[in-house]
C-alpha cells in the first residue's frame, strides 16, 4: 500500500520540514495515495463532522506512530502487524471514550466511523512504512503531517458538501435556502452518498490539475 512513497525524490528519508511537506502535499494521503477514503466520504456531510474526524485521525496517527517507533527495536518482525493494530486500536478506544464523555452528540453522529479508524489505511500505512524505520520524534512529525494532509482534504470536501447541500457552514446559515424563504434551492444530492463520491472525485481531479500529476509518462496508470 505504500511502495510509491519514495518515488517523489526520496523525501521519505528527509527529516523535519521535508517530512511535513511530503505528508501534507507531495504524497497527500487522500488525494495521491487514495488511502482512508471511507471516512473521507462518510463523515463529510458537515464541516464540523469533518473537523472532528480529522482531529481523531491526527491524534491516532501521531500516537500510534510514536509508540510503533518506540517499540520498533523490540517488536519481532513476524508479529509486527498485530502489534501495530493493537497500538492503533488502543488509541482509537481512547479517543472514542473521550468523545463519548465530552461531546456525546458528535460521537452519535460519527457512529461506527471512529472505530473504523483502526482499519484506516493511512494510520496502518504510516506505521508500517515510516514509524518502523525512523526515530520517535520524526515519526510523530510524520503522523502529524499526514493528519494535516487528511484534514485539508476532509475539510475541503465537508466545506463544499455542507455549503451546496444545506447552504450552511458549521451549522451557520450562509445562503438562505428556499425552504426558509431565501433564494438558494438546496442541492440535496450533495448531502447524500452520491454527492460524496462526486465531490471527492472533482477535488482529486483539481489536485491533479494543480500539481501536474497524470503527466504523459504516467498516463497508462488508469
Amino acid at each position, binding site marked *: *500500500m505504500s511502495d510509491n512513497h519514495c518515488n517523489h525524490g526520496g523525501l521519505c528519508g528527509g527529516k523535519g520540514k521535508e517530512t511535513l511537506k511530503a505528508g501534507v502535499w507531495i504524497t497527500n494521503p487522500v488525494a495521491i495515495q487514495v488511502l482512508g477514503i471511507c471516512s473521507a466520504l462518510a463523515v463529510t456531510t458537515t464541516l464540523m463532522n469533518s473537523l472532528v474526524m480529522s482531529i481523531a485521525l491526527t491524534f491516532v496517527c501521531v500516537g500510534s506512530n510514536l509508540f510503533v517507533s518506540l517499540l520498533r527495536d523490540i517488536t519481532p518482525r513476524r508479529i509486527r502487524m498485530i502489534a501495530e493494530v493493537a497500538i492503533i486500536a488502543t488509541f482509537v478506544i481512547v479517543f472514542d471514550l473521550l468523545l463519548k464523555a465530552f461531546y456525546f452528540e458528535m460521537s452519535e453522529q460519527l457512529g461506527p466511523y471512529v*472505530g473504523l479508524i483502526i482499519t484506516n489505511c493511512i494510520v496502518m500505512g504510516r506505521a508500517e512504512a515510516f514509524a518502523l524505520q525512523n526515530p520517535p520524534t520524526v515519526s510523530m512529525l510524520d503522523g502529524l503531517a499526514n493528519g494535516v494532509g487528511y484534514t485539508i482534504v476532509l475539510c475541503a470536501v465537508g466545506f463544499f458538501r455542507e455549503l451546496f447541500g444545506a447552504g450552511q457552514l458549521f451549522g451557520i446559515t450562509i445562503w438562505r435556502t428556499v425552504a426558509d424563504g431565501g433564494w438558494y434551492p438546496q442541492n440535496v444530492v450533495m448531502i447524500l452518498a452520491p454527492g460524496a463520491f462526486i465531490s471527492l472525485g472533482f477535488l482529486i481531479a483539481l489536485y491533479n490539475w494543480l500539481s501536474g500529476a497524470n503527466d504523459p509518462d504516467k498516463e497508462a496508470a488508469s
Partner: protein
Amino acid sequence: MSDISPWAILIATIFTSNILLTNFLGMCSFLACSRQVDTAVGLGAAVIFVMVCTTAINWWIYTHALIPLGIEHLWFIVAIAVIAAFVQFVEMFVERFSPKLYHALGIFLPLITVNCAILGASLLMITRNYDFHQSVAFGFGGGIGWMLAIVLIAGLRQKMSYSDVPRPFQGVAIVMIITGIMAMIFMGFAGMVKI
C-alpha cells in the same frame, strides 16, 4: 429498529442501503482491485465468506462475553482481533486442504483484514441492536452488495480504458465520479425495503 425480518435486511443491504455505495465501507480495496472483473469476483467472494463468519462470531462474543463481563469498551480491539485471527485461520486452512482454492483466493485474504467493510459490518450490527439472525443476514447481504458494486465498477473500468478521459480526471478521480453515478442509480431502489 430491531424487529425487522432477516430477509428484509438481506434485500435491503444488497440494494437500498448497499454497504459500499451508501455506507462507503471497503473503499480502499474497492479502488485498488476494481481494474479487472476476474479479480473483483475473487475478492468479492472472499469478502462474502469472511463477512458472514465474522459477523456471526463477533455477535456471539459481544453478547455472551463482553456484555456479561462489562467490558464493552474493549469491543473495537476484540472485533479487529477476531477478524485478523479468523482471516489467518482461513488462510492456513485453505492452503492445507485446497491448494487450488488457495491460489484463486489466497492473494485476497490478507487484504481482507484491513478491508473496513468487514469491521464496519461488525460495528454497525451492534450499533443497530441486531439479534443473531439479523446480524448474519446483514453480513451476508453486505457481502453480496459489496461484491455487486465492485463487479459492476470493474466492468465499467474495463470499458473505460477505451475512452478519452480528460487528463486530471484519469485514474481515481473518474472512478469516484462513476461510483457516485452508480450510487445515484442505486438510490432508485429506495423505498423497496426499509431498514
